[in-house]
């Protein structure tokens, strides 16, 4: 089967004291190539764990992940990752960070320079090419991280709250950039967020997860990402449709938490 297939994945962490954490329970998903899926859920519901399993950093307790028919057994450059922050190499310049993947793959200097130059243009950081990354602002650093990921031309891009540490304004601009890159490159993207608005705006599909045990609570198909590619970010976010869906999902999450809390109290 083509695309990214997550097949009945469960993850149980065993704690040093012998206790167990059911981080994921029977999660199944299928992404066609080029789909953008947003994953939303309260903290601790297993979002990062799911992404780490897809990336190949963790082996699931049960179930499997396949990409384009091949089973995922470890990290590979076909699955790129954008972390929340702190994953850039601070001993390198912006350009060296972006060129890291091709360089490790044995590309020639000229190839690397061409690719890096192009990608820095895409994320509008040309003039910061030779700055060490620690001198760049948070938003610029995340743009470097995006460019670094794209430099390897991965089939799937995994993003773990990539905009979570940014201020609201920068975040809004970055959302536009993510949409644009998605449309221009046609990559399959899994994007984790805990912002309902971001999930609605960016996700072609939206999966809402519930905690303890981490599982898929509800899945939606959304129209806004396609509009966002064309239209104006602000305009979309104040559409009655957008607001209604946002309220619906917020209510659902509230109810979900209530249910869990209530269950915890009586149980």
């Amino acid at each position, binding site marked *: 089967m083509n695309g990214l297939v997550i097949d009945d994945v469960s993850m149980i962490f065993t704690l040093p004291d012998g206790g167990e954490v059911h981080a994921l329970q029977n999660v199944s998903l299928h992404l066609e190539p080029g789909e953008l899926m947003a994953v939303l859920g309260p903290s601790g519901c297993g979002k990062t764990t799911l992404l780490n399993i897809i990336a190949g950093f963790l082996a699931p307790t049960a179930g499997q992940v396949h990409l384009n028919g091949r089973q995922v057994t470890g990290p*590979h450059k076909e699955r790129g990752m954008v972390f929340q922050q702190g*994953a*850039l*190499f*601070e001993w390198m310049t912006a350009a060296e960070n972006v060129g*890291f*993947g091709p360089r*490790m*793959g044995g590309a020639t200097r000229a190839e690397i320079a061409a690719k890096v130059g192009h990608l820095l243009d895409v994320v509008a950081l040309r003039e910061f090419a030779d700055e060490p990354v620690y001198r760049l602002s948070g938003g610029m650093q995340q743009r470097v991280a995006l460019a*670094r990921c794209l430099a390897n031309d991965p089939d799937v891009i995994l993003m773990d709250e990539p905009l979570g540490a940014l201020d609201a304004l920068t975040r809004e601009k970055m959302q536009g950039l993510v949409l644009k890159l998605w449309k221009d490159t046609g990559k399959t993207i899994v994007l984790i967020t805990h912002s309902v608005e971001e999930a609605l705006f960016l996700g072609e599909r939206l999966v809402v997860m519930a905690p303890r045990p981490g599982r898929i609570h509800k899945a939606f198909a959304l129209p806004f990402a396609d509009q966002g590619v064309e239209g104006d970010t602000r305009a979309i976010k104040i559409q009655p449709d957008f607001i209604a869906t946002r309220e619906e999902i917020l209510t659902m999450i509230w109810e979900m938490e209530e249910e869990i809390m209530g269950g915890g109290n009586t149980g």
Partner: protein
Amino acid sequence: MADRKQPSKLAVWLGVADNPFTRQKTVKFGDASAVNSGRLWSVATVAALLFAWWAVTRWGLLDPIFWPPLDGGLYPWDNPARARPGVVDRFASLVVEGYRNVPLWEHVWTSVRRVLLGVLCGALAGIPLGFAMGLNSVARGLLDPVVEFIRPIPPLALIPLVILWLGIDEAAKTFLLFLAALFIMLIAARAGVSSVRISKVHAAYSLGASKPQVLRYVILPNALPEIFTGLRTSMGVCWGTLVAAELVAADQGVGSMMMVAKNFLQTDVVVIGIILIGVIGFTIEMLMRALEVWLIPWKGKG
């Protein structure tokens, strides 16, 4: 606001006036960053110490056997047996003529060279071992008992054994300093490996890096700040260890110069030695800090 008088640069440097940063703070007691340099008092301390030295010389308050005169000409007595050249003159003659046929700079260089060689050898062995311990469980298991056992032993305690094995020549001193630096470097390198953020390693693997590439391009540069701190510590510890070793047995070096001088009751040479040791130790520390800023500008910025 324009009528607020700006203190002079000198006053700010001396710390008698608030600098532009501390000036805007109203809460100062309890805020360590709002405390001025107080350099005026540093100047006063140095001046007071020099004056005290001058005074005890001038008034003949101290027996020169215990503390040398600052300058022989100041001495109140005419007794030539007790009149000594004074530290300033002695220092000049040490620089020009040397001590016991060895120029002063050669004593200093001998000591510094021993430290550099010891630290170099210790780093060359300690860094790979520390990396092995940080990255591989067999290496960690094998080395851990040795490291944990030797770590709390002060290097000076090894001097008798090293003398038994290697005598008192150059090899013995290098070996002693090597041991002192080895464990510091090993522990620093291991800490550097452990300090890597897992997301950086994950990012590198996701970008297609192989294990050797992760080691070379992620683990190593990430560990450099800790390794450098280790180098600085080793330099300091080795400097102290070496001087002690030279006091025990050596024919050259600052420590041996002091030991010989002691036998001839040349307190001035002993005191000059002490001051030199302090100045060189301080200089090494400052050079290492400057080198660190220059070589590892990303330190603490991850």
